[in-house]
């Protein structure tokens, strides 16, 4: 069963002619790490708010553990741990006090785990939240999110603005949680390198629609960069048809030849391609998730979420 399921979600804000989210449907299988990617304004934040029952969609529905989120929010949220993009808490409260406060709300609150994690992170449990750095606040939020042993962890761009040490600590703890409990994770992130080594599934929001929704391994296998030179031969009558077998996302003609990014690479079709009349020195290379992102988004950087 899916831990999370979104069905035909539509979100339209008043005064805005085009919907912010349109026809969004996907599901997050148990034990997976689902990365939700998209540029600024692609609708990630709206989607996350709907998923957490913080916002009522214009139409469509989100389900957590098979139940509608909007109607059963209070009950369902007990099984969800959330690390928001900008963790917020009363600035005068220490992490220890926050933990004690949360313990009253969750029946199975593991207070010692909070202390243990903060010790591992090197974050003082007795310092007021408002005096902690951004990285320390994110780590406190993670320690609190994990203390209820959630079945689903929602991370909204958690490593944004963290330094290398805090980022490493964050991922180590996440890995430990995945190894120990197999927790299902939904995350949004601008840290594509981090996502690439952690995610099992990728969803890509573009202009309010879900442009991609598939396993990371499949995605990486089908996207490839081809480089080749076009040679005029006696038997050759036309150029530009050589890529007909591929779905070319981008094609650039360069001084030495052609560079194309294709979205349906297969060994066999590439072998046929290399044998085409006039196609010489053809080679294919893998793309990083970031390169795939850029090819789809059509921009150099995913940018910061507003």
């Amino acid at each position: 069963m899916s831990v999370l399921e979104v069905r035909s979600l539509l979100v339209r804000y008043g005064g805005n002619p085009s919907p912010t989210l349109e026809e969004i449907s996907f599901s997050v299988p148990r034990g997976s790490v689902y990365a939700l990617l998209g540029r600024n304004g692609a609708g990630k934040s709206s989607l996350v708010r709907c998923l957490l029952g913080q916002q009522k969609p214009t139409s469509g529905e989100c389900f957590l553990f098979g139940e509608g989120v909007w109607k059963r929010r209070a009950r369902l949220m007990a099984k969800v741990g959330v690390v928001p993009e900008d963790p917020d808490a009363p600035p005068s409260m220490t992490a220890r006090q926050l933990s004690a406060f949360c313990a009253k709300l969750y029946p199975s609150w593991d207070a010692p785990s909070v202390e243990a994690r903060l010790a591992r992170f090197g974050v003082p449990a007795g310092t007021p939240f408002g005096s902690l750095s951004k990285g320390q606040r994110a780590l406190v939020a993670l320690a609190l999110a994990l203390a209820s042993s959630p079945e689903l962890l929602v991370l909204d761009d958690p490593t944004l603005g963290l330094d290398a040490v805090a980022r490493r600590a964050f991922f180590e703890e996440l890995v430990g949680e995945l190894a120990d409990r197999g927790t299902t994770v939904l995350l949004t992130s601008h840290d594509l390198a981090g996502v690439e080594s952690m995610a099992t599934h990728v969803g890509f929001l573009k202009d309010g629609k879900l442009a991609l929704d598939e396993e990371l391994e499949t995605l990486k296998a089908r996207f490839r960069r081809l480089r080749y030179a076009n040679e005029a031969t006696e038997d050759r009558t036309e150029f530009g048809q050589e890529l007909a077998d591929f779905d070319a996302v981008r094609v650039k003609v360069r001084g030495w030849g052609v560079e194309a990014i294709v979205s349906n690479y297969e060994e066999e079709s590439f072998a046929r391609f290399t044998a085409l009349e006039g196609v010489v020195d053809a080679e294919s290379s893998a793309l990083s998730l970031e390169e795939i992102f850029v090819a789809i988004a059509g921009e150099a950087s995913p940018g910061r979420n507003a």
Partner: protein
Amino acid sequence: MGRMTRGLTVDPSDSAPLWRQIEDNMRRLVASGALKPGAAVPSVRDLAKELSINPATVAKGYQRLVDAGVLTVRRGEGTFVADKPPVPPRGEREKELEAGALRYASLAVTLGASNEEAVVHVRGRLDFLRKKREGGAE
């Protein structure tokens, strides 16, 4: 742990899936003698933490190595390099050798190496690995 995993690195931007990279690299460490029969390998959790990758990915690579007889799991103790190096079925062994040779041959051709030059390097590396295994030096 650092010592055991030295040389076991992965590259998320590589075209090979991460579990395959773990599988291949661990095989290489065993083949080179850097990991001796009976040696302990890091737990799934530790290796995942060290490489900052999803533990399910490490587990998949390990499972394939266990299935292939390269690693063994001793309940409650951990995962170890198998006592006897695995002998894959004849056909499969042949296929793997061919596939590996094809990868190297493609590289050599791409770099414009002559057959003689390419073969010299293969011989050199073979000698190097065998000496390492026999000498027992890491």
